[in-house]
């Protein structure tokens, strides 16, 4: 095998599968969105439950549930941004650099 063919074959073999990559990004973005919605719902539920209870032990549990829900919103938001808006933000940054370079 010549150098030319070896170089070309190495290059083609190193290319990622576009369909797989896009599908994975879509799945992660959906997971992030589900986490955000579920986390918000859990937090709201915890608030409602805590208001209907006089027991301080129950309220502690509901407080922990509320904090866990907010954490899920945070994690879900990061995952969603990483796999959906990340590309857009990268493009925006590149465009800004390019415009500054032109000036």
């Amino acid at each position: 095998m010549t150098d030319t063919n070896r170089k070309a074959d190495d290059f083609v073999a190193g290319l990622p599968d576009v369909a797989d990559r896009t599908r994975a990004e879509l799945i992660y973005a959906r997971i992030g969105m589900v986490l955000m919605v579920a986390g918000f719902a859990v937090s709201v539920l915890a608030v409602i439950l805590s208001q209907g209870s006089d027991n301080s032990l129950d309220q502690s549990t509901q407080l922990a549930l509320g904090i866990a829900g907010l954490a899920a919103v945070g994690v879900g938001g990061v995952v969603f941004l990483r796999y959906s808006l990340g590309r857009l933000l990268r493009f925006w940054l590149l465009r800004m650099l390019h415009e500054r370079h032109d000036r």
Partner: protein
Amino acid sequence: MTGAGSLIELRSVRAGYEGVEVLHGIDLAVPAGQVLAVLGPNGAGKTTLLSVIAGLSVPMAGELCFGGRVVNGIDPATLAASGVCLIPEGRGVFANLSVSENLWLSCGRGHSRSESEDRAYAIFPRLGERRGQLAGSLSGGEQQMLSLSRALVTDPAVLLIDELSMGLAPLVVADLYERIAALSGTGMTIVLVEQFVRTIADIADRGVAVVDGRIVLDGPIAAISPHLHAAYFATTEEHSP
């Protein structure tokens, strides 16, 4: 895998900007190791063609393939990391970074900063003398050297060059193309965009003329050269060498 076929292939590619079609069904196959010159007048679609190959412009229709694999919509950063390097028109150096820092930015494909710098200064010793200087303060020729060396240190499989000669003195252009000619035996597949055939006549294996978003001539440079003038001025007619 790519031994018998083409490394780069465009199948009926239509592409453009914000809904305006610039390329109207381009069919092009470039074998591995070939030096292809893309010729044509201003506004013919040459830069758009390079943008499609570099992944910066996603085809509206048709397919972009590397080694037979369809890669429409691939992230240009992924393509660059895999070994496709584009030297854009207007040099594409970071004016407010030094020569050394510009080279630092190109050491993502398994090369350390010092390796990148050593390789670049070996190819263009003049850059070594100006390593601490801001890239924006270099002459046009030196900026193009920096741009070219940033590409070469990554040892890409596919090198795309957009109008290397623009705004440069003929002697500088000849020197830069001499470096590119030296690469043609290293297995690199090179696509050069140029307006003037004389500039690349000695180094290109093959030329295609793009006029109004269509390939109107395709063949060895010597065979298509006599027909270029007619092709540039008769916009939509078919021409054959």
